[in-house]
């Protein structure tokens, strides 16, 4: 194979290559398109200011068995190294959500809900209980700043 073989690995891209690559791009775009909100999501996620953030895992996000109702709220439990917590997200019917939360170990940790419209902040009471009244629908991320620590704990980005 000579160095200037146009079809070899070192050959320059020609029109045919361009066409093939466009076809491949079209193929992937049709078969497995990027989510429409991918860029927004990435932008939203990288804007988090703290560099030292522990991201917690979702350990339970489903309807509970053993009760006589069905989904009208979302209960999500998160577990991490520093704190565990649970939130109950309820639609208010006017496009906003009420969030109730419980933190363990209980202490007046600072709680921030990041939304595209800016952060909403509150603080848990000494028993580890917090609530936020009106969160707009869209992306959210819960960030807990545990008392007495410099690092923060964050959930992955979620959509309300």
């Amino acid at each position, binding site marked *: 194979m000579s160095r200037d073989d146009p079809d070899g690995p070192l050959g320059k891209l020609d029109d045919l290559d361009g066409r093939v690559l466009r076809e491949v791009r079209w193929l992937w775009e049709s078969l497995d398109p990027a989510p429409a909100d991918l860029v927004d999501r990435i932008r939203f996620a990288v804007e988090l200011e703290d560099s030292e953030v522990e991201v917690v895992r979702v350990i339970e996000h489903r309807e509970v068995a*053993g*009760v006589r109702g069905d989904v009208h709220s979302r209960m999500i439990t998160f577990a991490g190294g520093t704190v565990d917590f649970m939130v*109950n997200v309820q639609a208010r019917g006017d496009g906003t959500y009420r969030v109730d939360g419980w933190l*363990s170990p209980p202490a007046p940790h600072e709680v921030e809900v990041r939304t595209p419209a800016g952060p909403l902040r509150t603080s848990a*009471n000494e028993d580890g209980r917090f609530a936020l009244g009106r969160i707009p629908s869209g992306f959210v991320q819960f960030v807990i700043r545990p008392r007495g620590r410099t690092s923060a704990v964050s959930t992955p980005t979620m959509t309300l």
Partner: protein
Amino acid sequence: MSDRVRDLHQRAIEEINSGRPAVGARLLREALRLADRAEPLTARLLGTLAAAEVAQGNTGRALELLDEADEVVTAEDRHLLLSQRALVAVLTGRMDDALSLFDDAILRLRRTDQKAALTRVLLNRGMLHQIAGRVRLALADLDQCAQLGASLGPDEGMPRTVAKAVHGRGQCRVLTGDIPGALRDFDIAAEVYADQGQGMLAVLAGDRARALLAAGLPSEAATELDTFLKRVPELRMGHEHAEAELTMARARLAAGDPAEARRWADRARLHFRRRRNDTWAAVAELAMLRADFAAGNGTVRVARAAARLADRLRSLGLRNDAEEADLLAARTYLARGRTAEARVHLSGRDRPGAPLTTRLLRRLVLAELGAAEGDQRRTFAEARAGLALLREHRGRFGSLDLQTGTTSLGGELARAGLAAALENGRPEVVYRWLERSRAQAFRFPPVRTPADEHTVDAVAELRQLAREARAAELKGSQDTDALRRARQLEREIRAKGWRTDGVGGRSAEVGFGEVKAELADADSVLVSFLVDGGRLLAQVVGDRRADLLGLGGTAAVFEAIARLRSDLDAACGRRLHPALEQVIHTSIRRQLGVLSEHLLDPLLPAIGDHNVVLVPTGALSAMPWGLLDALRGRPVTVTPSPSAWVSAKRTTRPAGPVLLVGGPNLKHSSDEVRRLARIYPDSTVLDGDDATVDNALAAVNRSSLAHFASHGHHEQENVLFSRLDLVDGPLMAHDVHQLAAVPDHVVLSSCDIGQAVVRAGDEILGFTAALLYSGSRTVVSSVARVDDEAAVEVMTAYHRALARGVPPGEALADATRSEPLMPFVCHGWGG
């Protein structure tokens, strides 16, 4: 050649009538190029083109065209130009000119046999009367138009003219408060428009929104308008667009959002101005001033602006709007304490045929004048008269949905009366105003909407969709298409009910003395809660006493209830991390502590050791009372109003068959039903595959006691579709409203189904409320989640006690004693 011109003219008329004036104008200009100037048709073409220009907002151009047409018109066609000129006058706000032009045209036409033309001009004059607030004259013209048009048969576009007359009749009915009748008229018109005028369907949506607004359903009105506003740009209906914006402003105002209301009103005003429609721009200005006042900006500047606007509206020929502006001026002066100036603007009196809102507003302002001048008697009299008007209005509604929707003026009248009553302080006066200002819908006899074929089909489809959606949900996915279709069906079914007339008549108010006697008989005290500014108050009425007690801050109490209910949901039915469980239980204790302190402790001395009958307000309707330590083991009954409690207490029916139903997808429901079947050996049991909606509805009709152990779901946003899951789909609150008879006593061993949506005036809607309205005396249901397994023990204990003859309140108190977190509440009558 002239055939081609005639064809173009006909097509242009079609386009304009279908809401596409620009297309029509193009066709007409082409026709005018082809037409012979000397032909009589030319005048018609010019006249129609003028109409198309008006529809696009070019009134100046339209007048030029009409002047041009005047020169070539034949005597026979004169009326056409007169009425077209009249239309321009309407749209530029010269109502009196318009009326004499129409009168002239109608006089000329009555001398000829041009019946079709006469029909059309009658329609237009009817609409003019309606805009100017002359409802009776409007109805006379519109009825004559509809009759004449119908006699002419389907030629010459008559069905559409008749439809427009019926449509206009509906608009008049909205003004007189006959909402079901208006909605029926709109339906009739819609059928014709669907065939021959898509554009008019959009206009109809705007009118339907105004009807819903008048019925006190502002968010429903906003939904209709959203659809309309989305369609309007493509239809290019400038005037209708602006009118819809104005209605949107009113809807936002009624929903308590004055800032948003002002934005919409301002937008409408600009659009009307741009179209040189001074009349409607002035009406939009009135909406802006109303929004200013509602936002608390009751300055003298606003008062003066309203007074000036009143004069302008009067000179424009809009009497109703002028009156409203005057009343607003008076109200604003009152808010500044300037009673003398306020009186000046209150000099008028109700005209016969004035719209309900104007009449209510006058009562309200007069009541406020009484309060400002320390004339309590006047405040009571005016507020009472206003509420009586409103009651009469609501009595015309057959659907509970409309009966419970109160106009915001109703709420303000009730507040004015209640404030005066609190100032007066006499227990029976306070009692009477509490009774008068809440749960009025309970005093209307229930009306069952006759189910038409379409609704029956829609309900069947909805049940099927709900079942599919539920199946998807259980598998952890969500069928969004099915959900969307379900929302649409729910809306259709619900809207059908709005068209039903009320049957009139209502049950009497139960007096103070009577209530005290009944309370003594039941060894009970009555606690009625009310919000007074930022604080909660309670009136405690017993056999011998009546106290008005101050409780905690409203916001703190309502927040504690919201937290408690979320805590209960979080604690229920899941295996939790012990540390988190600890946090949740600590919170439950803390909220119960807050609620005891602010809600109950101040009442305890007055309650003594009696049974308790509670009349909640707002968020208190979702309070799990039995969880409070001081009430544990004590019979507690929750009722919408004292009158509702007394009538439930006095109802006695012989015991009859028992129905037990076990719903699907629960581990312990069959067990519960089996155990209860041993307590009631002759009961009908529907479990497993037998627990279908049809079986349940057929059996529930005949039963005096019914027990459902199933999944329950409260729909906050669409309460009539709150439901119990059965094996083939849900049994909905809507189904309950259709039942000819409901059991005396219903136990809903399900989650959440005791919750309600609380409308102004503490009118409640929900599954439990549906049963109570339909005549159930006692409903036991839960205001939060219920643990499947624990429910079995509680319910078995409850029914064992009932079977021994223990009254429901006491039976429930005993049954939940060992399960401290069971959020069941006894509604209606508890013994």
